[in-house]
């Protein structure tokens, strides 16, 4: 039963992953990718990691909807009205992916897998939190702040308007000059 569910999910993940490159509409490609991710999330759930699996579902849905906006905005042929191809450098890609697949598959068969020692944690979510936050709190804090700083820096670098555009050269304008009004009335 478990094996059957696993097979169905992995086939779904792979086939919808392939469909991403087959369909010619950006909207369909995005949501094919989402189906693929959701199938993987269900497999994570099958391993008993409830928190991780559900968080993957949550994050992937949000991420793919935002991705749909950007894919439709930046890719050619957003609605599938003109023929387009998602393939680039097909020959090189075929060689690389063939080599990677062979290497990984060989790894599965060749590696001497260790025997299990110990038992699964009673609550995998707590164990995960301990593993991430227990001994590595400083690392995680630094990582979090670095990621946040990267996001802020990216937004600052990519925005076309800064505070001088909003509030004048001396930053003393009564009201900010914004193209779209906000709700707080700044």
């Amino acid at each position: 039963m478990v094996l059957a569910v696993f097979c169905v999910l992995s086939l779904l993940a792979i086939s919808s992953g392939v469909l991403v490159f087959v369909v010619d509409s950006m909207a369909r490609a995005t949501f094919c990718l989402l189906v693929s991710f959701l199938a993987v999330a269900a497999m994570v759930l099958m391993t008993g990691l409830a928190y991780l699996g559900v968080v993957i579902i949550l994050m992937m849905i949000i991420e793919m909807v935002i991705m749909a906006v950007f894919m439709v905005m930046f890719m050619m042929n957003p609605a599938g009205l003109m023929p387009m191809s998602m393939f680039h450098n097909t020959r090189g890609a075929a060689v690389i992916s063939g080599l990677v697949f062979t290497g990984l598959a060989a790894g599965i068969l060749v590696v001497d897998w260790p025997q299990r020692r110990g038992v699964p944690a009673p609550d995998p979510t707590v164990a995960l939190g301990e593993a991430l936050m227990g001994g590595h709190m400083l690392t995680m804090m630094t990582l979090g702040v670095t990621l946040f700083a990267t996001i802020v820096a990216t937004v600052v670098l990519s925005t076309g308007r800064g505070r001088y555009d909003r509030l004048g050269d001396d930053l003393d304008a009564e009201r900010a000059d914004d193209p779209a009004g906000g709700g707080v009335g700044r």
Partner: protein
Amino acid sequence: MSATTLLLPALMIAAVWFLAALDGALAGRAAGRPVGPAAAAVEPVRATVRLLVGQRRSTLAADGLLRWAGIVSLIVAAVLAAAVVPLGERPLVDLSVGVVWFNAMEVVAWAAVWLVGWGPNGALSLVGGYRFVAQGLSYELPHMFAIITAALAAGSLRITDIVDAQAGLWFVVLMPAAFVAYLLSAAAMAFWGPFDAPVARDTAGGAGSELAGVDRLLFAGGRRLLLVAAAAMAVPLFLGGGHGPWLPAWAWVLLKTAAVLVVLVWLRHRLPTIRMDRWAEISWIVLVPLTIVQALVVALVVLARGGM
């Protein structure tokens, strides 16, 4: 098991009917044509039958598959989200990560509304779909902070543990700002009340503008099912779940859910539709810091009580 499994959708449909009847009654009163309780109760049934026999609309070069996926996923997600709400002592499924599950199911609405807006190949419905994504980006963070504050106070992501933690004090007293943020986000996730810009009249119905017949029925029904699920979740998270004097737990859950629904319907008729640009700024400038501070206060209370 199977009886309870069927009970949940039946209860949700009953709640949707109650919601639609109340909404119709208030709309009639606001329009100066007050309707009696009996007429208000019959009206949703009549509207349902009318949509069932109505013709479906097909548009040129529509992506029917994506539109169908959007409509169906809205309904399925609403029922799955409600599956972790305790209908009395126990929910249908008592997940150890119930809060996160609810959150994951409720963000399906993002994909669903965008797909419904995209599918018909219509400009106005597309505008509605994009409006909902902007709305989602605005309501989601305060929403997440609000529900995680309830989990923080209980020290568990399991909904029944959160209800048990409110035996003495309801969380609405401990974290009023989180409750208000949750209530607003409940309306926003179902594009209801002041947050109905994705289906507003200025875009001829927005995301739902090209839907007719059974498609429109399912989309409107799924939206109301999601609102019911969100209102029902406010009860275990903030309003003490089944705790209350005299009545059994299930009766309290029903009463409190109905009360939350009444508040949401009343707000819809009291407040005008809020524009996305305004709501985005209010949400990010006011609600996000507010809910973070709320979470901090609750964390300090938990520490002072010797929890964690």
